[in-house]
């Protein structure tokens, strides 16, 4: 059976998509050295730069968040595969500055290995860089060791607050502190309904029965923790929010950010319905939704499902979320 995707040679997916992306938005992004997406108008050297790394196939993540007020560079690997450390070091070298670089890595083994190796090499070259690891997945339990907690779509709000702090001229320590604050107070849980096709192999990345859903599914089809019969939108939202809200250390009296992140084939219609139920649940717990995102931010090809992300906010984080930004996939006037 033919793969029902619009592609050419499966080996060229990443270069072609990056070329298309940067050609579509030349006023915002440019492609450097094949796999590095950088801001078309670089920020001032006196400000901290924000860099991330990660595989392709999750569009718009991660490169959709390169832009004023967010990332300075995204280093792209191949489909679902981290870029090698040498390419990361190249990006760090391009952005080397006295103000320093915040380097955001999502907790997936390949990414972490490349990240660690790049850090080692960058330090040898005297590059001022600090690494922060996102690991907000609560599928293995909110108290599971960090190694077991994957980095999901939570990196994106983290880019936003760190990017805004950097744009405001904060020091590397201050930018790191802001990133750490949201990192320590955010949680994500994913649910899958329908599988996706790996665009290189053409295989389904997992199987689910016609009436099944799986809570805790990872971003590459890694198994989750709870297969069950399908629930309604409201039941699903409440079941998940009841775990995510406390895992973000939030409860009565707190202001939170909610992101409903569509995995690919789950419609925005459904995401709004899920958001509605999530907000109602959060309010029933005495907390308020002070910031929301609903849409496709980090996808898994055409997987059906979504990630529910919640972060506890204070005024500083809320202001940083509302600060101007001009990335292709997150623009704030």
């Amino acid at each position: 059976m033919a793969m029902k995707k619009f592609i050419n040679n499966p080996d060229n997916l990443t270069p072609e998509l990056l070329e298309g992306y940067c050609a579509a938005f030349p006023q915002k992004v440019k492609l450097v050295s094949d796999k590095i997406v950088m801001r078309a108008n670089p920020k001032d050297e006196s400000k901290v730069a924000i860099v991330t790394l990660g595989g392709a196939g999750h569009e718009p993540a991660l490169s959709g968040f390169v832009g004023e007020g967010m990332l300075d560079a995204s280093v792209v690997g191949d489909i679902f595969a981290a870029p090698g450390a040498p390419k990361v070091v190249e990006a760090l070298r391009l952005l080397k500055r006295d103000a320093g670089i915040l380097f955001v890595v999502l907790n997936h083994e390949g990414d972490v290995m490349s990240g660690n190796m790049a850090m080692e090499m960058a330090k040898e070259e005297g590059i001022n860089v600090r690494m922060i690891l996102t690991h907000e997945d609560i599928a293995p339990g909110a108290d599971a060791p960090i190694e077991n907690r994957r980095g999901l779509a939570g990196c994106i709000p983290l880019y936003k607050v760190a990017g805004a702090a950097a744009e405001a001229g904060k020091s590397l320590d201050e930018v790191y502190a802001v990133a750490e604050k949201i990192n320590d107070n955010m949680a994500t849980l994913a649910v899958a309904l329908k599988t996706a096709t790996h665009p290189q192999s053409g295989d389904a990345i997992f199987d689910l029965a016609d009436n099944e859903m799986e809570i805790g599914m990872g971003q590459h089809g890694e198994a989750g923790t709870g297969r069950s019969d399908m629930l309604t939108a409201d039941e699903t939202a409440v079941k998940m929010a009841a775990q995510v809200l406390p895992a973000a250390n939030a409860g009565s009296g707190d202001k939170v950010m909610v992101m409903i992140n569509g995995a690919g084939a789950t419609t925005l219609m459904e995401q709004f319905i899920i958001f509605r139920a999530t907000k109602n649940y959060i309010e029933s717990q005495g907390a308020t939704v002070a910031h929301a995102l609903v849409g496709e931010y980090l996808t898994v090809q055409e997987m059906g499902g979504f990630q529910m992300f919640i972060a506890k906010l204070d005024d500083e984080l809320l202001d940083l979320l509302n600060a101007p930004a001009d990335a292709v996939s997150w623009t704030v006037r």
Partner: protein
Amino acid sequence: MPATVDYDAFTGMLKTAADRIITNRDHLSKLDAATGDGDHGTAMAKVANAIIATIDSHEGNDLKKLLKAIGWAAMSTDAGSTSPLYGSLFVGMSEAVPEGSGELDCQVLASVMESGAAKLRKNTKAEVGDKTMIDTLVPALAALRAAADSGKAIDEALSDAETAAATGAASTKDLKATFGRAKNLGDRSIGHLDPGATSMSLLFTGLKEGLAAN
């Protein structure tokens, strides 16, 4: 069979190992599909192609430089966990090749491989029994070291290593994964061979066969 391998013999061994991997590309991806994300064959083929391309374009016959270049090329393959793991394996091997050395005897070969393994293992806390490539690498190098210490010839030593590698790879079938993407499956990972352990075993087979062929 000479007591040492020189630059040509060693690159021949590496190329044969790379060919072995490339031939098994689909098989490795299928194994990974069962417990991970289905790309280990693609990943290892990229590393194998990087080995071959680096050898083909390398000038001179400095093994130390060659292995470092292979390490960097492997790291740059954008192949998930595989790139940094194999990248550091080769960079680590390079570090143990004596400066200016043209030939490796059995003892030095064992040291070179051990140095590579040590660098690789800096990336991961995985131990034997965790259902990863470590289940192949550790017993294979133990066998290589034992053979070298007991004065065996390189071909015999590599043969011992290959046997130990194969046994190690096979042992992963009954294990529960605690590292890599497969760990998310928990008990459901039991009953599947680990793809990384399998490809590492193919590498040892290739090294042995490559030596014999040259």
